[in-house]
């Protein structure tokens, strides 16, 4: 597992009770190309208050270059920023 801190653009959906779920993310790859990844499945969602900063962490399955990968996405509630925190290679 590699730890990253990659800021990403995201499309997410809020359901009627206010739960947020990531749908699609866009990031820059190693070749400086923008790639779009669909979130195939959200495996877990954890609320975290580490360092007193409220965030949600999502374990997600995505397809990247034809391979299935597991990533941990983080949504910072206060700053509204999405980040890839960890990537299982």
């Amino acid at each position, binding site marked *: 597992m590699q730890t990253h801190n990659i800021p990403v653009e995201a499309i997410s959906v809020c359901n009627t009770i206010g739960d947020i779920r990531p749908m699609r993310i866009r990031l820059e790859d190693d070749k400086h190309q923008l790639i779009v990844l669909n979130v195939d499945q959200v495996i877990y969602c954890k609320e975290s208050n*580490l360092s*007193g900063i409220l965030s949600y962490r999502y374990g997600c399955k995505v397809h990247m270059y034809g391979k299935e990968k597991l990533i941990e996405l983080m949504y910072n509630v206060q700053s509204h920023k999405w980040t890839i925190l960890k990537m299982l290679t």
Partner: protein
Amino acid sequence: MSRPIIFHIDVNSAFLSWEACYRIHMLGESLDLRDIPSVVGGDQEKRHGIVLAKSTPAKKYNIQTGEPLVSAMRKCPNLVVVPPNYDLYVKSSQAFIRILKEFSPTVEQYSIDEAYCDMTGTERLYGSPIAAAYLLKDRICDELGFTVNVGCSTNKLLAKMAGELKKPNMVHSLFPEEIQEKMWPLDVRELFYVGRATEKKLRSLGIHTIGELARTDVNILKLHMKKQGELIHSYANGMDVSSLHEAAQANKGYGNSITIPMDVNTPESAKMVLLSLCETVGTRLRADEMKASCISVSITDCDFSYASHQCNILAATNVTNEIYLTACKLFDELWDKKSPIRQLGVHTSKLSSEDFRQYNMFDMYKYDKLEKLDSAIDKIRERFGEDSVKRACFLDGPLDHMSGGIDRAKRTGITKPVDK
């Protein structure tokens, strides 16, 4: 009725722990600052380059909080220095206090990283005090990611002394029956309220441990140290009658000081600094609807020698201009006009909250008008930001028009308890 149970909870190397925790959990860094010699240090370019917090490995190099970064680097050339992030510290502190308030009905926030909790009568809820302390410590560690020390006892003093016993991430008890075994063998310097000067006096009396202090005749101590002698004698015996103050206690004075980025050599530029400090002090006084009748000015020169001067004014005031004029008068009397100034401070005390003013025949200014002007400016600044109105003399200068001890970045929560 069961005896009181007080907890003292202290974050281990607070600023550094919060910084390390943020870097690991929010930025995904793998290096833990707490495991290497590291410090949180001020900005060296602005001459605020001192150690604000240090890691446990840094302690082994004898690096002290408050010492210049240059000297810390000399002790440990591999020292990692990270800049402070006050917004983060305030958030971490708020989250820390929030957890304590869930645990105990009475929480007294003592500083940004320390608090007391009254846990009397919670045995049926959380079990024995030690079990409750572990529960609290582990919850903070799991939820917020940083470690704390918890001291348990029957009063605030003993709880604090217990919390200081061994760090980090520990629970200690220091109940009255344990004083002799756990507290008395400690060096007298470790006792709360014993500073460098008191330590010296005690050593000259042949008192080296807390136990020796506790067994000394209180009259001897009173003879040498007056009331403080009596106080530290009762502290050494584990006696403390102070209760937990949930609400913040009222300020006894309002003051601000600033270390100027470059030495000041002329009275004109020093007075500009004084004006910007008076602006901040005046604003703070007015925000709390207080007036002060004693004003003092302090100067630290480039050789770190410190001098201060104070005077009483006829009527208590919170008018910026009046504070400034008094400060200028004091400054002229105090400064030798030669030594370059490194730090300037303006402090006010003898506070009152009366909303009337005693006029006198020699008043030169129309204070009513100045008061109205100040309150209008305060309202504008509150609504549109601090920089929306500033004096013209600060327009092109390098100096902030409202400088002071509390940096803008750390104005909330650092010196006052955080409510949220």
